[in-house]
């Protein structure tokens, strides 16, 4: 390695650099080494393994496997359950991202400078983020229980007939989305609070002097545009987290009823650990990673554009 990089001095002189000495070369590799090794072991190697697995017909525990090319992907493309789970995941993500971002912003605006109790409220709203979602799912199961659940009891007071929220095809996914919003909005709230505290108060003074006629006008003129970077971050993070939904599905609906809550990671789990089709589960994982990559790249591009615009 060292010899290779010592060669080609002509290229260096073009760049205007002096040739590096061998011991500097070694030091550089020594410094980069640990981090590179960790990244390789933790991220790159598993990713390569998953991509490789997705090209095989490997089954969990099987002794033999063979290379099948893109057969797993072709199978997925023709599998209505897979498409169903993509659609469900997207639906869930849109609902949870919109819900948790909107609610998080609303709560952050309400809490901003709301006095001595603000830290207490902040903690309460942040609790679901820290709680174990499987444990909380059980609590929600009781709340949504068709006969003795709190939700039906409360709705009964205003004359709504009791429902089996998690077993009804029309309400199961929305119910999971509500739980998702409940779990995530505290995270959005904390980020929005940080963003709000970064807006100079003089801008609100300026808006007032400039004649912004209402709180809404000031929000449109100052708060919303200045929160844009935070909002983008919140949307990206909660999109990724929504795509990862699994715990509540596994604990509450197992994809049912009639596949209305079949989501991407649950499908992957079922393929890999119930049907033992590891190759196919790996293909789903690759699709999942690709989707996340698209979300992240979109964010990076948007941020780059913003930076250049300034």
């Amino acid at each position, binding site marked *: 390695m060292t010899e290779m990089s010592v060669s080609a001095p002509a290229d260096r002189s073009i760049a205007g650099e002096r040739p590096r000495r061998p011991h500097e070369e070694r030091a550089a590799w020594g410094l980069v080494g640990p981090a590179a090794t960790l990244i390789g072991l933790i991220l790159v190697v598993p990713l390569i393994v998953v991509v490789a697995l997705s090209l095989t017909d490997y089954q969990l525990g099987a002794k033999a496997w063979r290379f099948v090319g893109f057969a797993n992907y072709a199978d997925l493309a023709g599998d209505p359950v897979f498409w169903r789970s993509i659609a469900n995941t997207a639906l869930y993500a849109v609902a949870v991202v919109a819900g948790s971002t909107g609610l998080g912003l609303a709560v952050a605006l309400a809490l901003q400078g709301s006095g001595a109790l603000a830290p207490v409220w902040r903690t309460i709203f942040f609790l679901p983020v820290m709680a174990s979602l499987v444990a909380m799912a059980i609590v929600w199961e009781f709340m949504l229980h068709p006969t003795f659940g709190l939700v039906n009891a409360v709705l009964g007071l205003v004359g709504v007939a009791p429902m089996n929220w998690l077993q009804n095809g029309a309400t199961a996914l929305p119910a999971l989305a509500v739980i998702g919003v409940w779990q995530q909005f505290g995270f959005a709230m904390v980020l929005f609070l940080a963003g709000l505290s970064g807006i100079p108060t003089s*801008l609100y003074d300026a808006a007032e002097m400039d004649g912004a006629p209402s709180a809404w006008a000031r929000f449109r003129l100052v708060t919303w545009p200045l929160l844009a970077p935070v909002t983008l971050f919140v949307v990206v993070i909660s999109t990724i987290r929504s795509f990862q939904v699994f715990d509540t599905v596994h604990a509450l609906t197992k994809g049912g009823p009639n596949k209305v809550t079949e989501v991407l990671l649950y499908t992957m789990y079922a393929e890999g650990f119930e049907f033992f089709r590891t190759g196919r589960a790996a293909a789903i994982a690759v699709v999942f990673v690709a989707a996340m990559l698209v979300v992240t790249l979109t964010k990076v591009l948007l941020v780059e554009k913003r930076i250049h615009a300034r």
Partner: protein
Amino acid sequence: MARIEIDGIEKRFGRTPVLRGIDLDVAAGEFLSLVGPSGCGKSTLLRIVAGLTREDRGAIRLAGEDVDHLAARDRDLAMVFQNYALYPHLTVAENIAVPLVMRRLTTAQRLPLVGRHLSGSRAAHAAIAADVARVAETLGIAALANRRPGELSGGQRQRIALGRAMVRRPKAFLMDEPLSNLDAKLRVEMRSEIASLHRRLETTFVYVTHDQAEAMTMSDRIAVMMDGAVLQVGTPDAVYADPDDLRVAEFVGSPKINVITADAALAAALGVDATRAPDPDGLRLAFRTEAVRLVDPTGAALAGRVVHLENFGSDLMVHLAVAAAVPIVVRRDPHDPRPRIGETWGLSIRPDRLLVFDAAGRRLRSVVGRGA
């Protein structure tokens, strides 16, 4: 253009009194500076006039009308902020347009995309664009119209903030330390620019600064504030030459005024008849650096040793150690023969420029030098 009457304004933050009954009358079209050290309450007073902060007691009148019940947006004032407070996501032209957009367009007309196609909207938008272009032209920032504040220098941002204030014709301009974030050279440049802007707009300006040089060079009148009270209001000349209070004398003028404590004997030797003072032995005598000359030390009432020389090119400041703790500074023409460090010189103070204060710093106008 409007007269601003400030009547008995009091303000506390928690238990700390910030303003202790401020009375000021700013004439229509006047340039009045509120000057004082940081924490004296000048910015709070400006915010109260603007309507951004509520007073605890007292009243503000604009053009003869009580405005205490009006929100800032309804007072028809414009303000320039220390950090400019430009909207970072809007272009220069959009920033300047905001006051017009907020006042001339309806909520529906302000909507993005849709708003422009509503009835009457096109004409209103065109009128706003024309007004913005006119102001940008006046301030020489037309070329920057489509840039964002983040790409611009401090001086350019300052101009945009001025443009945003000017684009409407407000009753008065309020400026809160608008130059203090600029470098020294630009600050001097903008000083004359703001002064000429005031002459052109013929509008009332209230200008807050901690820099006495800004106040002296731009204002029609100066109000010197300290500890939540106005100590003196007057023309720059009057405040400089005829201060009511030792704190005013010390705050205004650069280099700082010379102050010595004197008993009756020293006062008499310097030509002051202290017999009429309530406490003839506890006097504080103040004189500007240009009111004192270096003379032969023999027979001089006051003499000192030269400890430091400061050459400004136009002036030479000679620092002399006398009995007083703080050296006395004498302004000299650098072309005159120069004193050397270590030499002893006598001081001759023009009696008519000698200001006499009591121990508490109050001016004793009845006690004056014999030459007056």
